[in-house]
């Protein structure tokens, strides 16, 4: 056989792990990583007060630069761009896991209502207990998302759960939770409400190092965990009974994967609000790039998500300057047509 093996196996000596990824993965990863880096740098350098590329790199790496550049880059733009990056990664990974778990290409945290549940709790926290710090937002939003996910699962359980009922119940719950959110907004104190509104639109405006610090641990913990679980996700994808036959503890791994997905989505939503459609788009683009095997798909999708949010952020900041559009709006404007196109393409399945 002269055909090259389509797989690369990675087996670290020390750790009881092995990954089998598509041949295309390393190349695609490098390309996506550099794209993300370029968009990050572009995002930091452009704006009301442009900073040359080289100065950006110098300021970031801590070389002596003018104090102006240092302030603009390190205090204002860099943390914000990094938050956008992490949010994109978190949402994309959450979406990838959810699509794998439900075996439904249209599932995503924002469609199923996990984001709406997370927003409800976070808005309640902002409006009702404004003195609580930003560090508490991610765990609160995580609990909100988790509560919603559990509620959806239980409500959709009718002598067995079906993906279709899962989605419909999710849409219903989204309507309910977003109504409760707007209730909060109608009756809160005015200044906290405007803060909550800005946050709800899905924006990284004014995010700085503290928010980045609150978000980072969640990604550091749950991204590698998702990666380790990728193999189990592949097995689950074959169907419950087959996965059981292959020796997978189905309910246990499914629960753990769901936890990862909700944690990533919740932490991202807590930091940047409703940045929609990233969790839907990124996995699909990733699958087109490297195929459906999750060990390769998860990192590629995460970088794709990061790239999408960075680009949305750039467009939102620059398109109507000096007015800023929140990047959640931009992702919806790009994402909803993409979603409809997906619906169109999968029409005969």
């Amino acid at each position: 056989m002269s055909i090259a093996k389509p797989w690369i196996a990675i087996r670290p000596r020390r750790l009881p792990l092995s990954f089998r990824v598509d041949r295309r993965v390393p190349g695609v990863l490098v390309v996506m990583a550099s794209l993300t880096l370029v968009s990050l740098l572009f995002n930091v350098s452009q704006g009301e007060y442009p900073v040359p590329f080289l100065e950006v790199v110098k300021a970031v790496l801590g070389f002596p630069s003018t104090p102006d550049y240092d302030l603009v880059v390190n205090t204002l733009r860099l943390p914000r761009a990094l938050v956008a990056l992490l949010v994109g990664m978190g949402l994309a990974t959450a979406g990838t896991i959810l699509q794998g778990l439900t075996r439904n290409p249209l599932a995503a945290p924002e469609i199923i209502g996990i984001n709406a549940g997370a927003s409800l709790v976070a808005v309640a926290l902002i409006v009702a207990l404004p003195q609580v710090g930003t560090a508490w937002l991610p765990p609160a939003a995580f609990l909100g998302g988790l509560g919603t996910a559990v509620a959806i699962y239980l409500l959709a359980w009718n002598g067995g759960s079906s993906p279709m009922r899962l989605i419909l119940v999710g849409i219903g719950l989204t309507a309910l939770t977003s109504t409760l959110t707007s209730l909060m907004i109608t009756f809160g104190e005015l200044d906290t409400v405007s803060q909550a509104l800005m946050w709800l639109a899905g924006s990284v405006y004014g995010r700085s190092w503290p928010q980045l610090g609150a978000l980072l641990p969640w990604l550091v913990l749950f991204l590698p965990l998702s990666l380790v679980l990728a193999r189990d996700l592949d097995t689950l994808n074959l169907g419950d009974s087959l996965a059981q036959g292959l020796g997978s503890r189905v309910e246990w791994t499914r629960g753990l994967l769901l936890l990862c997905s909700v944690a990533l989505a919740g932490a991202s939503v807590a930091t940047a609000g409703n940045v929609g459609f990233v969790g839907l788009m990124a996995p699909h683009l990733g699958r087109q790039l490297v195929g459906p095997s999750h060990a390769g798909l998860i990192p590629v999708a995460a970088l794709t998500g990061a790239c999408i949010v960075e680009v949305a952020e750039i467009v939102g900041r620059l398109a109507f300057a000096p007015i800023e559009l929140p990047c959640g709006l931009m992702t919806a404007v790009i994402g909803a047509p993409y979603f409809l196109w997906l619906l169109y393409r999968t029409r005969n399945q």
Partner: protein
Amino acid sequence: MLQALFRFDGSTEHLIIRTVRLPRAILAVVVGAALAVAGAITQGLSRNPLAAPDILGINMGASLALVLAIFLYGGGDHHVGFAFGGAAISALTVYWLGSLGRSGLTPLKLVIAGSAIGYLLSSLTSGILILSQRTLDEIRYWLAGSLAGQDLDTMLSVFPYIAVGLVASLALGRELTLMSLGEDVAQGLGMKTAWVKVGAAIAVVLLAGSAVALAGPIGFVGLVVPHVVRFLVGADYRWIVPYSMILGAILLSVADLASRLVIRPQELPAGIMTAIVGAPFFIHLARSKMKR
């Protein structure tokens, strides 16, 4: 109170009733009736228990068009024509997307297409509102679905459309009953289904568009009422349409009353009240009707 209507004497109480409360009550009745009938027709046409103008994004289309009109041409008079246009375009798009593919119009596809379109349209709406502070000021309360602060003149200018829509729906009752048996059956019984569809679609657009123009996107009336009515009078649309009218009017009036009284002196937008009742009902329907 009756005196204020029949023997108006100019006292404060009479003025309040005549200029504030009466228009508002009439509005609740009319909008409730329009939304409920629009929902009944949508459900009959698509043979889909989860269909309703708000779930399918039709209300969002009308809202976006109205916001756009106010953004472009300024406020003041209501741009009802825009609401109709927006409602029609989003209805067509969602219907087309939902009926793609071999399996035809399935409830799941219709609802998913509707919610995605709705998400897109409301994002665009909030984009316009962020760009234009002025539009936001004029429209903020209206967007939550509220019955407050409409005067009789604007209402009177929209009522004819609603009247036409309601009459058309009543007239189409028999045909809709046949259609709900399935399009093949209806054709077999000698009906021109295409014309019925067009007529019913126009009625839905007129009703939903003018309801949104008057009171903002009030959700779930169009979803809940037809089910309650079907439970009461069976599957015959000659009865469903008029009963939906009455029950829709009652539901929205009660919701409005509740929204004014629950947390006095403030008031909730009526749309929030209907959603709090309606969303659990939607979940219940999804649980019970979707056995597949």
